């Protein structure tokens, strides 16, 4: 239903003269005490029969995972999860804690950092995302690795996938660790970039905030303030 909203104070402007909907649209979660996600009863169905990974998949795609999707996503979540304090996203969360930020704003800082990190990662993998949509051409050369450490990580990824009884054909091209994980997400059915960004943030948030919570508030003397050394220059 379209309605005009009147200003009782008599101030008029474009927002008083334009018709807007009267209600806010809920597209995923039903409001109220018996919530459903994409139509499935949360408390009487999903909570009894599905795990957190499956709920994550359902939330992002609108469908309960079928086939190998949940196993693929589960492995990808585990491999994405560790983001050490060496990374800016977790480092920022640690700094928030050091500054005495509240728990909520420490989590918020971590989420912003992880969102930015995921954005950059997927920016760097745009050509791979295009290839995954149409894998007819050669696998993009820039996403192959020659590093022994990365190859060892890929072997562990393959082993984890095999343990779950799943495989990802794209991994035979010898991708980098990050490229391999993007391939796994795609194989799981998370084909849209926004779905991948969301999953990467969700996977990494617990460890990042846990790292922050281990920092002591106002522990400035033992925090490496000159790492890195911001050297002031005047031109």
């Amino acid at each position: 239903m379209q309605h005009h909203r009147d200003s009782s104070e008599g101030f008029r402007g474009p927002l008083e003269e334009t018709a807007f909907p009267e209600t806010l649209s809920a597209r995923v979660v039903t409001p109220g005490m018996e919530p459903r996600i994409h139509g499935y009863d949360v408390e009487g169905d999903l909570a009894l029969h599905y795990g957190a990974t499956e709920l994550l998949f359902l939330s992002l795609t609108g469908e309960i995972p079928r086939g190998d999707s949940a196993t693929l996503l589960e492995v990808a979540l585990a491999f994405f999860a560790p983001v050490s304090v060496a990374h800016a996203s977790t480092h920022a969360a640690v700094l928030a804690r050091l500054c005495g930020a509240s728990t909520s704003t420490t989590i918020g800082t971590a989420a912003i950092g992880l969102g930015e990190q995921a954005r950059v990662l997927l920016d760097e993998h745009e050509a791979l995302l295009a290839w995954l949509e149409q894998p007819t051409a050669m696998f993009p050369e820039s996403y192959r690795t020659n590093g022994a450490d990365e190859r060892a990580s890929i072997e562990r990824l393959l082993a984890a996938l095999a343990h779950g009884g799943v495989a990802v054909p794209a991994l035979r091209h010898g991708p980098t660790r990050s490229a391999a994980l993007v391939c796994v997400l795609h194989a799981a059915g998370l084909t849209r970039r926004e779905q991948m960004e969301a999953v990467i943030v969700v996977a990494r948030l617990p460890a990042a905030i846990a790292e922050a919570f281990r920092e002591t508030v106002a522990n400035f003397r033992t925090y490496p303030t000159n790492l890195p050394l911001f050297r002031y220059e005047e031109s």
Partner: protein
Amino acid sequence: MTLPALVVPTRSAHWGWDEHRYFGHKVFEELAGHESFMGLTALSVLGRRLSPECCAVLEDAANTLTMADPRIWPLKLTRVVASYGGTVAAAAAGLLVEEGAQIGPWACGRAAAVLVAMHAEIDGRSDDAGHVRDVVVHYLERHAFIWGFGTPFRPRDERLVAFARCMRAKGRDTLPHYRTMEAVARAVRELRRAEPNIVWALAATCLDMGLDVREIGPIATTLMQHMFFAAAVEGARQAPEILRELPEAYVSYVGREARTSPRKEIAG
């Protein structure tokens, strides 16, 4: 073991014992008591000081940009977050969406990039309506959309009208990019029946002050941050329950119909 220092150069600031440095200036000796808040803001974004005349132009911009109705979407977002009672978290959430957004101050940088390209093509012939029209037609053939145009929900942008009045009073309307801006606006109005908004004029004004395109999005954001604090401060003080959770009648579910999961069906 002593590790080699990892070094990142900075021109922004240094913490000294009795005096601090900020972009090449002594904070207590040169800035305190001498520089305005707008000048300090410009220094922070640009890394260089702006003349008092240019700062006055930015003051005009900040004032005429002040359209802070809490129903305007980025500000409403701020209000919604502020309903939990946190001021800075709400302001930060509002500001967070500005970078790269299609509406808001970041569009000013994108409009500036368009204006720079058109200014080069127009090449000083902004009084030649036919030439300007050709340049705009050429642009419109390659782009469906011009940043800095469009005035949703009203026929013209009243902020632009007020800002243009300020620029005329300061004699800034005769400067090169401003003249190009007006000439292009005339051509777009004729070709597309689209009106420029304040972003278009602010982009021109910033370019005439010597700002680089990359500096314009950030400086425009600083000119609008007061509105986010207005929304955040009042919103956090009110922290209205009806905003924290809208009454059920005000939310319409339009998603998937109720269904039963395969596992529940099997379980009976």
